[in-house]
């Protein structure tokens, strides 16, 4: 669902779910003294829920593309499912894992709707760069908006380039 829900809708439901006034949020507050609404922890949790499918999808697809005989060859040597996963499957989808991590991180970095809903844009606590860009534009402070945007652009650009460079050495093109 997080993959297809509008971020603001997901953020709204998370806001309701973690509200310390009732239900799960109240229980978390009473039992563990943890509050996820308008806090940095809440921001991290919401981003995790929102971005997880972007991570799981590519990794699942990479695992499905591995020949089934690879895990069979490991089982026949007496290895458990966990040993096979750790020693055979994961090492053979390293490029996909890296791509998933970087792209998910880049995606989370620019998240707006979910973090605004559950974080509330509190300076020094839950204000993130993408919201800061929006704030600056609202205040007509274009130089600040440009600075934030440039920083975000540079970080994501570097990440994407690193992934391409790393994967180029890891996997050969089928057309080569």
């Amino acid at each position, binding site marked *: 669902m997080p993959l297809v829900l509008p971020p603001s809708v997901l953020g709204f439901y998370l806001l309701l779910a973690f509200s310390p006034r009732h239900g799960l949020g109240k229980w978390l507050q009473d039992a563990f003294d943890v509050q996820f609404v308008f806090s940095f922890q809440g921001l991290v949790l919401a981003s995790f829920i929102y971005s997880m499918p972007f991570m799981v999808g590519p990794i699942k697809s990479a695992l499905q593309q591995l020949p089934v005989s690879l895990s*069979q060859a490991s*089982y*026949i*040597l007496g290895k458990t499912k966990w040993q096979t996963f750790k*020693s055979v499957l994961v090492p053979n989808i*390293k490029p996909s894992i890296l791509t998933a991590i970087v792209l998910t991180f880049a995606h989370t970095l620019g998240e707006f709707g979910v973090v605004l809903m559950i974080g509330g844009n509190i300076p020094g606590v839950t204000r993130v760069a993408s919201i800061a860009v929006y704030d600056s534009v609202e205040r007509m402070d274009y130089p600040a908006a440009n600075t934030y945007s440039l920083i975000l652009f540079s970080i994501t650009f570097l990440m994407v380039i690193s992934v391409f460079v790393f994967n180029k050495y890891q996997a050969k093109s089928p057309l080569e």
Partner: protein
Amino acid sequence: MISIAIEKKLKVYQGRQVLKIERQFPAGSITKIYGPSGSGKTTFLKIITGFITPEKGKILVDDSTWLDTDLNINIPPQKRMPGFVFQDYALFPNMTIREHLEYATTDKDWIVRLLLLGKLDTLIDHKPIHLSGGQQQRLAILRALAIKPKLLLMDEPFSALDPEMKTELIEELTIVFKEIGATVLIVSHNPQELEGLVDGELLIV
């Protein structure tokens, strides 16, 4: 002694057919399995490994029951542990030749012996992508032998080897099979390939 009686429905191009095999293989024997493409040779081997479960069947290996559909016994492949040479080799792309064998066994002397047997001792730090087809196939055979299996299943194990290497390797393998006391089932398309090596044949149609 290995005793196998299985019945498995197969989906084939013409519709459906039943793979029905009832056979005993004396301990230490080498049997050639042959038959037309799609007849179920690989399926038969995979049923023995436990990767495929037949509708009806019983597999007894020495004193242990690997499969008995009537009694609901189905030992997983990890516990059956026959040696298996896959038709597509199924080598691990992330591992070197040495790592393949070390993943299978901790017996260093046996690893050295296998490397010499497969003439791969000078390539131990090479990964499969840097090996020729013949070298990959030899590595697949060595990996299967690394666990010193009592039952060795080989699916077209010599198809990528040149005739000279094939003859030499088969001679050496025969000695190793006897040494570890393995019962061997070899799927082969080539009628002449295993002449003089096998004790029996099994035709699957």
